[in-house]
């Protein structure tokens, strides 16, 4: 039962991670690559970590070993760190790219360029 849940969560996470890495190869410019790279990868990582949390909680419940409690708590903290740092990093890269003069390709509208 637990094994099936873990496998399903891992497959969902791996599919999103794969799409993220394909996306940064497929998309045409920096901004669209940021969409694929830093966000699909974050979502996929949340699901693979959720698989680890489910596994750790089940083992904690059956074996009552402190190693698994450590594993669950630290995985949750690592996911929170990823959730805070990843969008901030993506925002910094996008802002730096726009300031250094790289314009979005195939853009239908660019308000930021018009007002600067």
């Amino acid at each position, binding site marked *: 039962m637990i094994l099936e849940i873990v496998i399903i969560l891992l497959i969902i996470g791996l599919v999103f991670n794969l799409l993220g890495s394909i996306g940064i190869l497929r998309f045409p410019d920096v*901004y669209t690559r940021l*969409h694929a790279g830093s*966000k699909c990868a974050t979502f996929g990582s949340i699901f693979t970590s959720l698989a680890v949390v489910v596994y750790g909680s089940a083992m904690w419940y059956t074996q009552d070993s402190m190693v698994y409690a450590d594993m669950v708590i630290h995985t949750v903290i690592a996911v929170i760190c990823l959730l805070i740092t990843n*969008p901030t990093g993506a925002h910094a890269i996008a802002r730096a790219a726009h300031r250094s003069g790289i314009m979005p390709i195939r853009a239908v*509208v660019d308000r*930021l360029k018009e007002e600067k």
Partner: protein
Amino acid sequence: MPLLNFIVTVIACLIFYLILTAGSGTDILIWSWQQFAVGILFSLVVGMVGRNVLVGKDLRMVNPRRWVVLIVYLGPFFLEMAKANIDVAIRIITGNINPGIVKIPTNLKTDLGITMLSNSITLTPGTLTVDVDEKTRELYVHWLDVKVKEPETSESVSGSLEKWIRRATE
């Protein structure tokens, strides 16, 4: 109020240290006394060095009611994120995009609210905050699929997220 800042910083650091070292022994609940002593020592040092950096002027977020709202906020946020992620996944496979940078006005007053809204907008795929106008509180958002060129509110970009953040931070 330097003393209040100091106390808040020390307690926050101690709680974080204790979460990280949970399960180290059985002396005090589930912590060993060595970890407890080292945690208190380092929290005092960090509190002395960073009391004005980490907390700032505004102690509004210490209120536990706001924390409850923030935790409830994770629900609609995660739903929004899942929907948008599936949308971007389809766009990655088909390669069908319509990008552009739009300007959205916001009604949030605090810096923390703006930060949280722009981070949430960045985490829901399809939208990415590029720049912020600090005077007029407007966000410049790169949108993967531009539906409205002149959005009036942040409703069309981020759904109901702004309402939740206003409830949590103001």
